[in-house]
């Protein structure tokens, strides 16, 4: 058992650190949930891509470096410690790409992945519907077979990034008579500017259009944009969902870096109550470290040929609650400045604590609510009786 990085890994870390030190903007980009910020972040993706830092773990042919999972973790640590911009390509990279690697054709991979890696095409997810949030199997939006493809109609909602993105992916009911509700679904990709697609931006809690409603009226999707077999969309999507809950969405570097900044904030000690907040700061540091080590253990298991199943639900609950409590502690440490929105010119740290707080609040909701994760943990990891659900 060891926690040692090889010389090659250390060299990789140094290369990443040096590159980031030279390129990360000294003033944060505008929020990526605004039109202006979206464009700036798209450009940043191009900068990353140019030097093959946008998707380090992908094969070289698609713009990656074929890095190991551990190297990816190292890159992410450096990325967040450097205070680099949020990843506007994240939905594509962490949700769609793993699905394509597992279920896509060679043609699909070659067509979709490079432009995703470069930020040329930004992908939005289109999972939820008004009546299907946690209960994803009850989707209603329909795909009807037609010559050379499918005609798609229905409504999707809380589609992250869709306000400014180029294309989207999601599940559609292709066989309404398939019996059990999670049979008869098909996984499709489609352009957001296609005929019949209406995108209505939705403001998130702070008003920024971080997601959108999609109204689909007889949209044509060619066969080449179906991932996996028609009707097999549920198992195809579930592999994506495991990714979302598991390793790839919230890398530990995000939290270790944030905990480090929180400690600096606490040390600066503006707020008279800061002494009593000490334990909360310490807990953020400890939990970020725990999450990092937990992830190293998972990465080691995967490197040793193992796999991660329901354990990813442990991750989801842990990081989402850590993220909220870390940001709440920061706002408390900021005292009267903690109230400012990230758009306030005088907001501390360019509004990053405020923005991070708003973002953190969604953590226990998306990618499977924490209530559902706890059910999964209790039933699949502890073997307790299945409840109604």
């Amino acid at each position, binding site marked *: 058992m060891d926690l040692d990085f090889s010389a090659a890994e250390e060299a990789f870390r140094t290369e990443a650190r040096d590159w980031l030190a030279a390129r990360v903007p000294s003033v944060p980009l505008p929020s990526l949930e605004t039109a202006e910020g979206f464009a700036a972040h798209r450009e940043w993706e191009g900068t990353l891509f140019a030097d093959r830092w946008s998707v380090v773990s992908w094969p070289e042919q698609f713009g990656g470096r074929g890095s190991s999972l551990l190297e990816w973790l190292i890159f992410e640590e450096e990325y967040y410690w450097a205070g680099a911009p949020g990843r506007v390509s994240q939905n594509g990279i962490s949700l769609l790409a793993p699905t394509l690697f597992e279920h896509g054709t060679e043609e699909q991979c070659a067509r979709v992945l490079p432009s995703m890696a470069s930020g040329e095409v930004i992908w939005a997810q289109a999972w939820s519907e008004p009546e299907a949030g946690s209960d994803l199997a009850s989707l209603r939006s329909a795909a009807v077979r037609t010559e050379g493809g499918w005609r798609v109609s229905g409504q999707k909602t809380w589609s992250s990034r869709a306000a400014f993105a180029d294309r989207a992916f999601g599940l559609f009911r292709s066989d309404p008579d398939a019996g059990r509700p999670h049979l008869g679904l098909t996984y499709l990709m489609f352009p957001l500017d296609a005929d019949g697609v209406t995108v209505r931006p*939705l403001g998130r*809690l702070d008003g920024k259009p971080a997601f959108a409603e999609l109204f689909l009226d007889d949209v044509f999707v060619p066969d080449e944009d179906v991932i996996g077999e028609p009707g097999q969309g549920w198992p195809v999507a579930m592999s994506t969902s495991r990714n979302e809950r598991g390793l790839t969405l919230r890398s530990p570097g995000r939290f270790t870096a944030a905990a480090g900044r929180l400690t600096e904030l606490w040390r600066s000690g503006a*707020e008279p*109550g800061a002494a009593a907040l000490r334990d909360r700061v310490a807990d953020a540091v400890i939990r970020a470290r725990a999450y990092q080590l937990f992830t190293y253990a998972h990465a080691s298991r995967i490197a040793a040929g193992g796999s991660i199943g329901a354990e990813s639900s442990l991750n989801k609950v842990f990081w989402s609650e850590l993220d909220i409590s870390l940001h709440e502690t920061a706002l408390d440490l900021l005292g009267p400045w903690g*109230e400012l929105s990230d758009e306030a010119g005088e907001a501390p740290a360019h509004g990053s604590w405020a923005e991070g707080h708003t973002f953190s609040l969604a953590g226990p*909701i998306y990618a499977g609510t924490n209530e559902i994760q706890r059910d999964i943990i209790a039933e699949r990891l502890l073997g307790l009786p299945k409840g*109604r659900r």
Partner: protein
Amino acid sequence: MRFLLDDGQREFARTLNRMLGSAGTPGVVRSWAAGDHGPGRALWAGLAEAGVFALSVPEEYEGLGPLPVELAVAFTELGRHAVPGPLAEAAAVGTLLGRLGGDVAHAWLPQLASGKAVASLYVRSPGGSPYALDSDAADAVFVVDGAALGLARSHGPVQPSADPARRLARPLGEAVLVRGPAVVAAAAYAADVAALATAAQALGLGRALLERTVGYVRQRTQFGVAVGSFQAVKHRLADTLIALEFAQPLVYGAALALAADDPAAGREVAAAKVSACEAACAASRTALQLHGAVGYTEEYDLSLWIRKARPLRSAWGTPAACRARVLAAHGQR
């Protein structure tokens, strides 16, 4: 002892609740947040007519007060309906000028009580907030700086708060009106009134969040059943109710202590402030979580309530400052 609201107080609450329930406050809040104070000023005028701003103004200045219990009753309703504006600040200005008396009281209090003028209050303190609330909407921003009471001449650019209905700005250059130890004493008492009013607002806010969330989980179905039939959901809402039910008597207790000029009033107010505000924050988190993505969507009106909780929690006494104050005074019975 009769630690219960009387019929008149209850009726006052019902009247305000009815009035605000039909005032379309979500639209008013959205306008206010956009810098259009017209609808908000109209709502304030209605509240003034109902007597809300007279509650902290003494009778000799055409007010009805000081009536801290009625103030708590009224502010609970203001919080329940997410009314925008420098509410706690207005109550505190009424208190401060009322205690000081003199020309400044005669000049301003009748106007404040009647709703003709909207006033905000800023108390300069080391480590305190650099911002006054809603300077751009107020006719007057009173500034307390040590033993000096003045009026701000202007204000800096508006800094948006996490609650967009709270418009923060630095007060700039003040004209001193009164100076002396009476200012210090009156300002301290007025700050307690502001804290009480904030606590009452938070209580009402939490009640509204709980009520809406209960309504939502009763009708929203997932997996073929009402979300509200899941035990995890039920227990979380039960905890929300418990926190609010035990914050409420602290709010009324603090109001009584202020009414009696009780030397322990400071700690009673601090206890009420921290309890009501923590309960409202927890209610806000619960409302967000149990509404799911719906609750995270700005265009649903619930967001107007959700975003108020944290700013109220730090206004007029952070939880840390309130807890310190409770212990500073505690020990003897």
